[in-house]
């Protein structure tokens, strides 16, 4: 198989294999993680009998492979569960129920994902604007004072942890200057304007951390491109420097920026834990840290797989963009 359908198929198979491998790793790792799940779920003062009941309720006494088998069954065929008063169906792909809250993990993902996607997508736009913009400017003004200043500023972003940037931004912008309200998540579907205003600071702090890498990459690729032969062609034909930098050199930075962006978007969906915690955004990352702390295995597996899915997806999209951008590339 070749061409686009073949590419999609190959990628899909690869993704499934990768994700299954990840789920196995997570199962094993969390199986050996300390923490008595039944006790945590039942509550601190539960008696041994109660803890046993809860353990049975959650199938915690089953051997590891059996639990994993049930997980796979749920993924493929869904599963039925009891709320006590009635039997409910969790349709495939079912990641099971949270030990802690009895919620369907699938549902949990659907409530958390929009938050993480909002955060990451907006931040991505910002980090691309900031990063690529700075990169272009510094390639354009290379060697001059303004370039050094720009480089310094973006580096400052990388060098400062997000929890410092975020908190200081919030204290200054929301607390002292009162330019913005303290962020709290408003769904895009509820009020797009409020959504954007409330996410502005989280976007900014996440973007500031990431922008530097893009600035450096853009600058380096552009300088690389500027040294290439075809740039000489356009210079030799009297094409202005602005067009050369803005059109031809920038185009050369496109592919590496896409690649880096894919990398970052994927990992940012799960990696924005710090940002989400700081700004109180109920996203995937925050939920995941919480679930790890209480050894809520179904939630951990579900969330990790979602993140893994986005990493794989981001890479595949990047490859497609790459190929569209540069038709010499063949999709494999």
């Amino acid at each position, binding site marked *: 198989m*070749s061409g686009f359908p073949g590419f999609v198929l190959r990628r899909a198979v690869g993704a499934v294999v990768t994700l299954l491998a990840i789920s196995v790793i997570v199962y094993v790792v969390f199986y050996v993680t300390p923490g008595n799940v039944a006790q945590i779920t039942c509550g601190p003062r539960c008696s041994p009998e109660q803890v046993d009941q809860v353990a049975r309720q959650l199938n915690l006494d089953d051997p590891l492979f059996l639990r994993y088998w049930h997980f796979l069954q749920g993924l493929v065929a869904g599963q039925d569960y009891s709320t006590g008063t009635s039997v409910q169906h969790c349709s495939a792909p079912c990641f099971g129920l949270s030990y802690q809250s009895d919620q369907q993990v699938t549902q949990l993902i659907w409530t958390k994902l929009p938050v993480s996607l909002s955060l990451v997508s907006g931040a991505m736009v910002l980090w691309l604007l900031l990063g690529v913009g700075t990169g272009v400017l510094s390639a354009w003004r290379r060697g001059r004072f303004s370039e050094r200043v720009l480089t310094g500023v973006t580096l400052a972003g990388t060098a400062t942890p997000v929890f410092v940037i975020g908190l200081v931004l919030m204290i200054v912008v929301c607390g002292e200057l009162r330019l913005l309200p303290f962020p709290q998540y408003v769904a895009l579907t509820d009020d797009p304007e409020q959504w954007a205003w409330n996410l502005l600071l989280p976007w900014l702090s996440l973007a500031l951390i990431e922008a530097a890498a893009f600035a450096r990459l853009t600058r380096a690729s552009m300088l690389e491109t500027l040294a290439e032969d*075809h740039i000489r062609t*356009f210079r030799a034909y009297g094409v202005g420097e602005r067009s050369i930098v803005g059109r*031809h050199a920038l185009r050369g930075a496109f592919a590496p920026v896409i690649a880096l962006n894919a990398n970052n978007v994927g990992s940012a969906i799960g990696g924005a834990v710090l940002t989400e915690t700081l700004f109180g955004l109920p996203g995937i990352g925050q939920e995941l840290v919480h679930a790890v702390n209480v050894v809520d295995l179904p939630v951990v597996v579900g969330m990790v797989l979602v993140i893994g899915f986005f990493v794989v997806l981001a890479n595949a999209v990047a490859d497609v963009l790459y190929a569209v951008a540069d038709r010499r590339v063949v999709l494999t």
Partner: protein
Amino acid sequence: MSLVEVTGLSVDFGELRAVDGLSFRLEEGAALALVGESGSGKSTVASALLGLHHGTGARVGGSVRVAGTDVQRASDEELRRLRGGQAAMVFQDPLSSLDPYYAIGDQIAEVYRVHARASRRAARARAVEVLDRVGIADAARRSRSRPHEFSGGMRQRALIAMALACEPRLLIADEPTTALDVTVQAQVLDLLHTLREETSMGLLLVTHDVGVAAESVDEVLVMRHGRAVEHGPVSRVLGAPVQPYTRELLAAVPRLDAPAAGSTAPQEAVLEEAVLEEAAPKGAVLEATGLRREFGRGKRAFTAVRDVSLTLHRGETLGIVGESGSGKTTLGRMLVGLLEPTAGEVRYDGRPHTGVNPAVQMVFQDPVSSLNPRRSVGESIADPLRARGERDEGRIQARVAELLERVGLEGAHYDRYPHEFSGGQRQRVGIARALAADPRVIVCDEPVSALDVTTQAHVVALLGELQRELGLALVFVAHDLAVVRQVSDRVAVMRQGRIVEEGPVDEVYGTPQDPYTRQLLAAVPALDPEAAALRRAERRELAAA
């Protein structure tokens, strides 16, 4: 006023003086070739004509006037108007000289709009027009293609089209055909010729290839070390050179028509025959039967070599000639065991052999990448000795020194690194390394194509000497028909993975049977301008046929 007036031009890059006091003129509609080996400063002159050294740190002295513009004093704006508008440049490597990300038509249109007040649509139309003009079939559709979708020749045509777009008065062509196959080179040179006939454009051709100059221009300026050596009408300079360097240069050029002439060829040819007679009865040292090699899988699979059988006898030289993509390098690598054939087998001394074999060595094309830049040349040469299990440092050093001296270098060069050597010297190191394994066969993969003509002649002579002395059998893989003729006893012509014609050198070159062989031979530029005109006519006939 002349189209180009260069007076006392000098260009310095830091310590290096690339051009030193050069003066020449070019009248409207005339054609001048700057000929020289690498490092002669010829390309630097071409760049200076368009003021491309501005802002690069190079120091430019003297005066340059092009189409009435004083390039040295011109403002950025004036320079931009000159570039492309009055004088357009065509570069050596057509692939890297075009932006890989944009359609060719768009790139031409962009350049056009810099100089002409035109709408986007009009500019595109102009791009299609000039592409059509340079002989791109279905220009409107192909103008939407990107450079990688074009063949090498089409790309160079596209660059020429870009140059034509604004109807410049001067065309500067910097090694326009160096990256092209010989048949394509001929087509491009023919195109330039036609364009000059039809427009009154002046042409400044920069080339290392005397043959290319002979085909294309009225006047020649031979350069060396940044200075003019000899300047005059093409027939006079090439036909009756005055300066010793010009003579040396011309003598080094391998010729199709006069194999017995030239500097080192005569003795070699005689001796080769002697060796051949002596060696032939000993039979085949290397045999290939039904060799086939595929790359890739599925739809993207392609067959580089298909059904090639050949025999190499002891002490003989087998030339393998073909254009790029003909599969000759793949064949060479299968012969030495670096690539496993998909089908067929290679027999050494009558026994099938797979994998590498110290007795079958290789000399590579690129003198830069064939030596590890991080290891001293002595270490590289010593590799086969050490791999064989030799542990005695003294013996290794002695043997390496001996080999270095044998290939014309100094034994003391053991500890030097590749970058301290010139291209020719590196190729000698490569030969020494091959010899270190005490081989009986050496496959030379384009061993001289990256070298200047004079260097090329020396390396070819060295190979001949070694063959005689050591009784080696050589496989000489090359694209240059003249070089192959010069060294080979027998020759095989490859095309699209197959051998289309094989036989003793004189037969194949003298009475070619396959039409492709004839086409190849007709495409080789002649040194004599009159012969060049004849060849051009011959090519037209072949194309028409």
